[in-house]
């Protein structure tokens, strides 16, 4: 992307775990509730309370570690990270410092047909902070309001190696990570709700340089698009500075999506003095092999494995397989349709085309649609058997999507059956020729292309219900007479 420099990017991703309760207390782990209705003395940090670790959160981080090819620590502990901020009622965050649950994993990505292996340094377990709202900008507001519902939500922080060489690779890594976490069901990864958040480190160095350049840390990127834009902007900003012979100032920058810029955050002078120490209120966790084995058994086929299977078993193109398997729900839906209608390529066309279009337009996910996969299979069968034309099939599908009615009922009630009956079609075709005498003359004079016009007229006369193949045959017959 830059001519004279090589880019180096590392990502720190926080994912909220989809447990029922918070990490250290029984309060509900739920987004969007009324402020401060999911709190208790433990998560409010009241004196005299003690945290107790949620077993499900431990199982989820181990599951994530296994799915990301990590080594799982047999002995793990928690530490206190100390800092004052109103979103943190205890004035420390319980996190992990030197003995995280998972280390040394990797994710394989593909960008422009090239394979890259991105290392994962570590994954640790910690608690989320509360949510602040300010009247206007944080620096202008004379007060802020705090909602502690989110405080204590279990989080995993996934730290990558600085292995990404372009903003595109960083986005591919994130998409793959999101897809895997969704597959194993440990997080719902809703970026818009903040359940998946990514911070990035970026530096550039002259081509061929042994040493890395000075890095900046980027925050506040809330979508894949924002991440790609922010990283691209930051790489170019650093390039300009270095070209002018200036130095990069190490520090944190925030992405302003509206302005399309990264801006320096004012650094708290002691920002990195977190004074970690072992958390005395929690005992260590020992993870035995039998526990790991049990968790391993709950991991389903992951996107890459499923993609290969689609190419081999269903014979669909690699591109189709990649698009469909990236989303577990979409893949489940696809398989359910293929189980009842075996032209997998036809199914994949519909799933990636009409179905995905309607999902996006209506902002629903495949698991929450009104109709059953078997209904789509039935529709495709009706189309294959020429009961309905492909144009009508799309219309019926949209109606299925919006109402949940089955295709047979829709076709019956709206009289959408394809007209293949020759005598009925013959009559209509004759009418069309009758009404367009001059075009008939054209055809007989040698302009065979006019046939397309007649087909169109016939389709219009039947509201799309005529079988176009049959219409063409009939027209040829009549015109050549």
């Amino acid at each position: 992307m830059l001519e004279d420099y090589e880019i180096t990017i590392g990502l720190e991703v926080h994912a909220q775990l989809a447990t029922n309760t918070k990490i250290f207390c029984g309060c509900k782990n739920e987004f969007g509730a009324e402020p401060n209705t999911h709190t208790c003395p433990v998560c409010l940090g009241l004196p005299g309370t003690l945290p107790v670790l949620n077993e499900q959160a431990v199982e989820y981080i181990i599951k994530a570690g296994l799915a990301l090819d990590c080594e799982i620590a047999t002995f793990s502990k928690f530490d206190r990270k100390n800092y004052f901020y109103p979103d943190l009622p205890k004035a420390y965050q319980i996190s992990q410092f030197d003995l995280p649950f998972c280390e040394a994993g990797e994710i394989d990505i593909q960008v422009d047909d090239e394979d890259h292996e991105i290392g994962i340094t570590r994954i640790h377990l910690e608690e989320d902070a509360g949510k602040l709202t300010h009247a206007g900008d944080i620096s202008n507001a004379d007060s802020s309001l705090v909602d502690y519902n989110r405080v204590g939500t279990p989080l995993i922080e996934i730290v990558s190696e600085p292995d990404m060489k372009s903003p595109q690779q960083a986005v591919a890594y994130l998409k793959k990570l999101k897809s895997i976490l969704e597959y194993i069901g440990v997080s719902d990864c809703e970026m818009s709700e903040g359940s998946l958040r990514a911070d990035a480190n970026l530096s550039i160095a002259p081509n061929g340089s042994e040493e890395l350049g000075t890095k900046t840390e980027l925050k506040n990127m809330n979508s894949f698009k924002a991440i790609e834009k922010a990283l691209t902007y930051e790489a170019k900003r650093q390039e300009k500075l270095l070209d002018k012979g200036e130095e990069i100032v190490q520090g944190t920058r925030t992405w302003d999506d509206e302005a399309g810029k990264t801006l320096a955050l004012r650094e708290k002078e002691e920002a990195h003095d977190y004074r970690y120490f072992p958390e005395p209120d929690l005992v260590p966790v020992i993870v035995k092999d039998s526990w790991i084995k049990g968790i391993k058994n709950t991991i389903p086929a992951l996107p890459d494995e499923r993609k290969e299977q689609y190419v081999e078993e269903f014979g669909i193109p690699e591109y189709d397989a990649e698009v469909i398997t990236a989303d577990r729900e979409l893949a489940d839906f696809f398989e359910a349709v293929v189980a009842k209608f075996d032209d997998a390529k036809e199914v994949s066309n519909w799933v990636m085309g009409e179905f995905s279009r309607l999902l996006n337009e209506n902002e629903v996910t495949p698991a929450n649609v009104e109709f059953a996969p078997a209904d789509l299979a039935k529709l495709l069968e009706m189309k294959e058997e020429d009961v309905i034309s492909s144009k009508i099939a799309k219309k019926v599908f949209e109606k299925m999507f919006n109402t949940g009615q089955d295709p047979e009922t829709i076709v019956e009630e709206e009289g959408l059956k394809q007209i293949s009956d020759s005598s009925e079609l013959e009559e209509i075709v004759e009418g069309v020729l009758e009404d367009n005498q001059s075009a008939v003359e054209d055809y007989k004079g040698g302009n065979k292309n006019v046939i397309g016009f007649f087909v169109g007229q016939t389709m219009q006369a039947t509201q799309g219900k005529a079988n176009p193949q049959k219409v063409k045959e009939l027209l040829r017959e009549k015109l050549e007479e």
Partner: protein
Amino acid sequence: MKLDQETVERVAHLARLEIDEEEKETFTHQLSDILDHAEKLNELDTEDVEPMAHATDVNNVLRSDDVKESLDQDEAVANAPDEEEGMFKVPQIVE
């Protein structure tokens, strides 16, 4: 180990404690004494001793993922010095 006053000021700031000149003087001595006392432990040979993660021998204290009742909104903010719309109201964060 002798602490300098600057370190004491820094530690106080990190803990958000306001201390006057006299206290700075007192704490500089007291904290130095505490560190000296702790320094004695360094005389022990800990070459083959694993660092301890916790003072007890207990491990794996876990709870099942069952929802328990939370406080009502009113109760949650009852002790807040200031409150608005069911939220804790705090003074300006960034100056």
